């Protein structure tokens, strides 16, 4: 089991708050790994550090054997490590198809590669992935006109458009209509299986993460509290206490 992502001693402070303290963990290639923890335990902060959204105050991060600790977000994204946002970020005044077209990393992000209209290949792949995420019928709508849940799905489709090596998903089912959650789980599993994308998933919904992840890390107060397979964590006294204590 080779580690695709290795986090070693990651520490991040915001003024007086230590949001992440000495966190070390690994995400093996091709797997689905979960990251759980009560509100404010530092999950999103860890993702932000990994993708270079803000620099860490200590520790190092490696992706596929490469040191990425000091790289900027866009550089890390171009290595195939893509994140989605907890609050969902899409391009609201662009249509679903346009959102997808600009996310096509294969068509290129270089200045000269951009200087041509959207190709038929890009369009086909965009439509296929929109269909995969159940958004084909909404492809001409402005992203800002979509519901919150639909925007989450669009964000997932955009991330897949990059053909990423690994996806960091920050609460992919939060705010999604409960009847649609199973559909999201199934799509994530298929993305992992069929496209070979490693998934590192933050999730608040215990049912979701237990059925999705093969291995779970739990944070509390910015520290790594426990790690293990879902069944083990579900019965872990420390994890239960952390969640009860936070509620």
């Amino acid at each position: 089991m080779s580690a695709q992502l290795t986090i070693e001693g990651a520490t991040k402070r915001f003024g007086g708050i230590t949001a992440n303290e000495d966190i070390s963990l690994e995400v093996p290639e091709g797997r689905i790994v979960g990251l759980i923890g009560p509100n404010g335990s530092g999950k999103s902060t860890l993702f932000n550090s990994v993708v270079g959204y803000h620099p860490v105050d200590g520790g190092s991060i490696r992706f596929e054997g490469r040191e990425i600790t000091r790289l900027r977000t866009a550089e890390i994204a171009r290595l195939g490590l893509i994140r989605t946002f907890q609050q969902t970020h899409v391009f609201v005044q662009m249509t679903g198809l346009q959102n997808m077209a600009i996310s096509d990393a294969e068509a290129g992000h270089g200045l000269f590669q951009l200087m041509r209209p959207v190709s038929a290949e890009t369009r086909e792949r965009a439509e296929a992935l929109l269909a995969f995420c159940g958004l084909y019928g909404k492809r001409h709508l402005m992203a800002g006109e979509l519901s919150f849940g639909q925007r989450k799905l669009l964000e997932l489709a955009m991330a897949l458009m990059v053909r990423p090596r690994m996806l960091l998903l920050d609460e992919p089912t939060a705010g999604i209509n409960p009847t649609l959650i199973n559909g999201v789980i199934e799509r994530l599993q298929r993305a992992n299986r069929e496209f070979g994308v490693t998934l590192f998933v933050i999730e608040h919904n215990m049912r979701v993460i237990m059925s999705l992840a093969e291995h779970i890390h739990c944070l509390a107060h910015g520290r790594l509290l426990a790690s293990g397979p879902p069944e083990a964590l579900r019965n872990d006294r420390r994890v239960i206490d952390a969640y009860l204590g936070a509620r």
Partner: protein
Amino acid sequence: MSGHRQPLLMLAVAAVGVALPFVIPDYRAQIAMLWALVIMAQTWDITGGQTGYNSFGNILFFGVGMYASVVVQRDVGLDFFPGLVLGMVVGAGIAAALAVLLGSMILRMRGHYFAIATLGLGIAAGEIAGGWDYLGAGSGLSPPLFPAPPGTANLFFAYLYFGVAALVFVALAALYRTRFGLALNAIRDNEDKAEAMGLHTGVYKVTAWTMAAFVLGLVGGAMGNMLGFVDPRDTAFAGATFGVWMVLMAILGGKGTLWGPVLGAVIFHITQELLWTHLLGWQRVALGVIIVGIVVFFPQGILGWARTRWPARHEHQGHGSERA
């Protein structure tokens, strides 16, 4: 303005552009100015509308073009027309180089900070030019005389600016249909997300501003000759007139749209020509009232307002499958 009506509208505007100097020959100077204003609004919109980076300093590129062109005409010793063309190209080149240089520094700043950083550009340039003897210091420069009967100069500039405006329009229509156009819109909508998707946002922003600067350099390059004098504050780095107008016209028509800046410039120029001379010293006040009026009543500009009013039409244009 759906897909198939677009070329028709362009043809109609082109026909008007060609015929106008002969339909109303007394207004050739105003016609030339109209097309120059259209170009200013169009280029301002590349960053201001499409990319969401409001610049209040684009007048810098216009003024640089104006000075460079007249200096080339003065010092190179070519005939009038070759000298003018060379001057315009040199001016555009310097303006573009400045945009690359300044843009690499201040386009790192997000939205409002960038806008504030651009505020001083025109003023600073005016101060520098006003104190620089090589550029005639405070008294500015005089371009060479137009080598033909007086009436023909305005005819020449009317067609020159119309030609450039038409070229710029067609070029921008094509540009906004590429993925580069989408990248600019992506930056406007959510720059964090654009970066998270691996886009080279910095490079695109500088490129967009440089394109605007190049064209503004051309416009300024001919304007010194058309107006007949280059003054550091009144014509070249005229922040209070051209500098504000280009922002205003784009917003009035509808920023972030292809036709909005054109429409805004036409309406602004006509209104101004009809009313301005009657306002005697109240022009600045009138301008202030117009700005407030637009911001309060037409924040999305005329086209943006029309789209909310008649959403069905916008369905066809904005969501048109031809764009993605």
